[in-house]
């Protein structure tokens, strides 16, 4: 058993490795990460994960639900540290796995992977408590500077591949539920949501852009037990609700970043021209990629976070079109249902810290994208397609107060009159890429008994 494997075993048991090993690990990771581009290329199949935030036991649960490394190919979109009480164990384990299986796990940087933020939100204190000095914090921060800023997933299948999953009691098909069996024809399935027990909670069929059809999948489709979120409003449906459907041509790539887009980045190639080896700046492209959020606005807006921007559907669609993307996957925002698709399924937020901060009551999700080759021999059943097309679906309820441009009160409205006829893309004229089939696995916090009481490490000795 190599030292690395020993370290992995220790960390998996939520135990720390000695400081000198941390240093070695960080140096090895640095050598590895320096070889990665600012945007790492990743081949499907891949499982995309959002914020972890030091919730070690939930990370273990994530691996249980999503499969272990190296069996599953993982992509973590940052925010490994802070908030939770086991940032060190979580980050060091991920780093160990990275060093051990460099091709099976990809780590990109989140806004919490920064000196400034970690001094405020817990990671610094945790290092101090657990190692007695800030050295380990310094080593980790050095690694943060080397983390890639994004990843580009290529080769994702547009159709889901069948699974052995069974239907949950509460299963809801967007189509008509009586016809559904686990082994149903997948050719038409756009989204499938599973719980932690590998039971299918719901499926959403791909819709074409017939306006009659551009409506919501069943709302509240995820209510129920068995590890499913009980929150009203189905996971992601708030977003898929106004989806025009992901239709048309071939699948494009999937861009993964922690935060979102930047007004300074119009093509992915531009990201390549950044020197990322620095503390996350307060402004500029690199900052935006890690800090921005999608929002129901037109164009760009100021972010309430004080860093990054808000960006609207037009921005996302334009960017995806220009870069031949079918989807942007990002993290950075807590979503109670674990994931949330927005803007006609052109962008999705994935959140992987269940019961965030040990009290938010949210579920977590991971996003699985299958490999393209898998559906090569898969015949599409016209019957199913026709049927799904024929059934009207409930119209989405407009969210009160958040219509298109509903948030323009923040001052954006003023410029609109003058700016008319500007560069806002003609919406919907862009034939966007068919989104890959998305299989979300939703899971709850690890059973509390399995992990003892979460607590910070107490101060060891005291003089004062």
């Amino acid at each position: 058993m190599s030292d690395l494997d020993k370290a992995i075993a220790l960390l998996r048991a939520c135990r720390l490795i000695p400081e000198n090993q941390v240093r070695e690990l960080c140096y090895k990771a640095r050598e590895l990460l320096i070889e990665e581009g600012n945007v790492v290329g990743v081949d499907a199949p891949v499982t995309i994960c959002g914020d972890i935030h030091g919730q070690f036991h939930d990370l273990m649960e994530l691996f249980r639900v999503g499969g272990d490394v190296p069996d599953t190919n993982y992509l973590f979109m940052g925010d490994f540290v802070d908030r939770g009480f086991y940032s060190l164990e979580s980050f060091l384990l991920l780093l160990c796995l990275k060093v051990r299986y460099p091709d099976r796990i990809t780590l990109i940087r989140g806004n919490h992977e920064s000196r400034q933020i970690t001094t405020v939100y817990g990671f610094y204190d945790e290092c101090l408590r657990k190692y007695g000095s800030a050295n380990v914090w310094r080593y980790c921060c050095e690694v943060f500077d080397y983390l890639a800023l994004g990843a580009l997933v290529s080769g994702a299948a547009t159709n889901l591949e069948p699974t052995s999953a069974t239907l949950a009691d509460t299963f809801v098909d967007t189509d008509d539920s009586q016809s559904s069996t686990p082994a149903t024809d997948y050719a038409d399935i756009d989204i499938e949501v599973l719980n932690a027990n590998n039971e299918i909670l719901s499926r959403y069929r791909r819709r074409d852009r017939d306006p009659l059809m551009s409506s919501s999948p069943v709302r509240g489709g995820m209510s129920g037990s068995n590890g499913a979120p009980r929150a009203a409003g189905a996971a992601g449906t708030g977003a898929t609700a106004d989806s025009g459907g992901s239709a048309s041509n071939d699948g494009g790539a999937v861009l993964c970043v922690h935060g979102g887009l930047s007004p300074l980045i119009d093509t992915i190639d531009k990201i390549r021209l950044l020197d990322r080896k620095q503390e996350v700046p307060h402004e500029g492209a690199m900052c935006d990629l890690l800090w921005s959020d999608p929002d129901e606005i037109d164009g760009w807006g100021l972010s309430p976070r004080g860093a990054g921007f808000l960006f609207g559907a037009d921005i996302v669609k334009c960017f995806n079109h220009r870069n031949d993307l079918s989807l942007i996957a990002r993290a950075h925002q807590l979503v109670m249902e674990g994931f949330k698709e927005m803007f006609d399924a052109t962008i999705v937020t994935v959140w992987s810290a269940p019961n965030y901060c040990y009290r938010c009551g949210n579920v977590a999700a991971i996003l699985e994208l299958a490999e393209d080759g898998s559906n090569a021999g898969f015949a599409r059943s016209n019957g199913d397609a026709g049927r799904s097309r024929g059934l009207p679906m409930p119209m989405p309820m407009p969210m009160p107060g958040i219509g298109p441009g509903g948030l323009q009160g923040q001052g954006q409205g003023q410029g609109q009159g003058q700016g008319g006829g500007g560069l806002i893309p003609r919406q919907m004229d862009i034939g966007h890429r068919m989104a890959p089939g998305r299989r979300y696995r939703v899971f709850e916090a690890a059973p509390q008994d399995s992990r003892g009481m979460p607590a910070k490490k107490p101060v060891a000795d005291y003089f004062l």
Partner: protein
Amino acid sequence: MALAVPPANDRKRVKVYELKNGDWFDRGTGFCTGSLVNDEGRIYVQSEDEPNRTLLETKVSKDDGYQKQQGMSPRFTKRLQPDTLIVWTEASVTDMALSFQEAEGCAAIWDFVSEVQSRQQALSGPDDGLSDDVIDNLHPIMLPPPDLSNLAEVENMMRAANSTPAGREALSKFVVGADYITKLVPLVEMAENSESLADLHRLCNIMKTLILLNDTAIIEYVVTDDVVLGVVGALEYDPDFPTHKANHRQYLKDESRFKEVVKIEDEGIRKKIHFTYRLQYLKDVVLARILDDPTFSVLNSLIFFHQVDIVQHLQSNVIFLKELFSIFSPQVTDQQRKKDAVLFIQQCCAIAKSLQANSRAQLYQNFITGGLFGVITFALRHQDAAVRVAGTDILVALIDHDALMMRSQIFKALNEKTKPLTDTLIELLLVEVDLGVKAQMADAIKVLLDPGANTASMETLGRANNEYLARIQRATPMVPQTDTFIQKFYEESARKLFQPLKDLEGRERMDNLTVQEVSLYSHLVEVLSFFLRQHTPRSRLFVLSEDYASRVAQLMSCPEKHLKLSALKYFRVVFSLHEEHLNRQIMQNKLFTNILNIVYETMPRDNLLNSACLELFEYIKRESVRQLIDHIVENHRDRLKTITYVDTFQSLILRYEQLHHPEEYGLTTQDIEGPAAAAAAAAAAAAAANRGVINGGGQRWQAGLKDIDAEEEAYFNGSDDEPDEEAAAAAAASVAAAGQQPGMPNGAAGAPLRPLVNYPDDEDDAMDMLPEIDGVPSAAAQQQQQQRQRQHRRGETPVPQTPPPERLSEKRRREEDEDEDDELGRLSGQAKRRSSTGSAGGVGGNGVRLRRKGTGGGGSGGGGAGPKKIAISLAVKSQGVAGAGTEMEGGAGEDGGGGREGDGD
């Protein structure tokens, strides 16, 4: 003394009740009056039956909660009308109630009480904050004396009370008054003895509820010696973890955790130290998972106040200090004790960071008198890395506290011909083997020599990267003493520090560096870069005279990629300085060969090193640093031609051609200078200025994190040429965000924007204000403008080395990706550029000018997104000013609004 309002003298029929053992006891019926004597209000009730007998005489108190309400107890004989009841708590902690026959009578007495209270409050000056919440509370709560048989009942009653604010208030009051916790504590052991897990779980829930009542008195009480073990004992049995039992008692019982380096005689202070520790333990361990925000902050502030008391006491205790520092005398041989003493002082300094400036100054002063510098030197040379870490910590805390004082100490040492601290640090950095400590020492050197590090506000930014702290204060002029200090440093110490770099000269092989060397060199290169940015012009002369550039370039051929990267970034820093002599030295020594070597080695792979190279060349190209472009293309044209996997290098050649033969390319000067980009920059800058305000009004915060180069630019221009500090700062702020204009329509939106070279542009200024009369500029005006600019540019050097100071914000940017054919874009760009002087005028005028600019952009049809964004900036500007404080929190920690519940990050 008469009452302004008619006193409640007419008699009101009333029943008097007293709360006894949870029941309302009827004390009789009588007539109620109120009277005011010497500003003291009293309520009397004379018995109905025996008029001479006084049923009640009570002073209206300022604080006690009087409450007017409906009937509260079924024991009242008749159903009471609304508001016939006044309830309050006597000073003797007895709950009393007056039940009036008529609502009017109740109202009259109520008015009387209110009147008296408001008088008292007026007399006693400003509200003391205690009486705020008396209005709507107090259904008094009585819990039965707890025993194992009624815990379930107690728990339920508590849960019920806990659900309303009034209930919580009443519960706290009762628990404190009845000393309830003391009664609960023995039950823990009893339940343990009878192995009743259910009871233990109930006790745990009860304790949790009590602590989360968030009552300071309760929280202070639970950590006292008598009850703390019982309390945490109960909390060991968390029903959320039925199969687990924590071992809090065992942990807290362990006395050995308290290291008493010097005996603390004062019993109260000793107690406080233990309380503080227990509070911390509660916060971090026992309650970590369940703490809500209010309790969290109550715990924190309790800890803070205790610590203040403790440190205040110790630092003024002469005997204590004497004994503390005598530990370091050579006579003392107990090494462990010395080590502990260093750690003790480290902890004092850590706590001191949160003290007020004057008490902190006093603490350090007393420490220094006691011999703190000796302790630091001792610690830095200690064989145990942990002690060296502590020593560096103390040192950095000291510098953060008062850099000037530190420097004067070093001066003193220099004058006395003893070894100054700087030299000690340098020696240690060079030999330090612990790589963590080494990094910390390199940081300490930076902080010590940071000309900006002399304001007390620094430490509020915490221990983050000192480089950031440094940049923040760059706009402040150097204090003369600081300047001399730095001069001394370059005369005496700098060579020692960078000697290892010097030693590289003549070294043949770079592939055999030891781990220690690699680490040392990367620190040295980083420190050197830092000095270059900080110490103008001394560091530049220093670098020039010793030709450090060539040595750093040598490092680029070592196999360690991160060191390569550090070296590469050094050159990037140099180029961003736009310092002709530094550039020339690099060119003379043909160091671009080394840089291009890295490109060759890494291309066409997409990795960090390669990206850093591309960024460097993009920067030169974007900035149109003609001196460098000429050199690169003239010396390396063939090599550049072969690098085709990105267009950076071809466009560098193209830029060269354009600079030399603009007419052959059919280009206007604008194309060369990148007008649209410049305009975008200015616009962005202005927008950013607003943003800066939003982010906390601070140049500081903004400066702290913004793009390095932009700020540098402004700094150097500012400090070299710009006498007007404020203008410089404003410009810095605006330039800072040059990269941040969202929605700039053409190209501008697409490129990784960077700061710009200064550019003299007098004519633009003159022109700018003319045609833009609130709206779409006329085509004629544009043409005219364009023409004038052409004439203007022709006879001009593209990149002057010393830009005129008053052009600070006229940053120019070349936008490669701008759609050159897009006439609309060009027009819109131009429209913006013309108004770009808006930001040159300083932050104050931005609002108005911005709007104009927006209009221009929109009018030309290309700037749809632009004006919108500008409008945003306008709108938030005013908000930003008002709410700067709060917004800053949001900026600083993304948590301002969401709180700990975190609406996501």
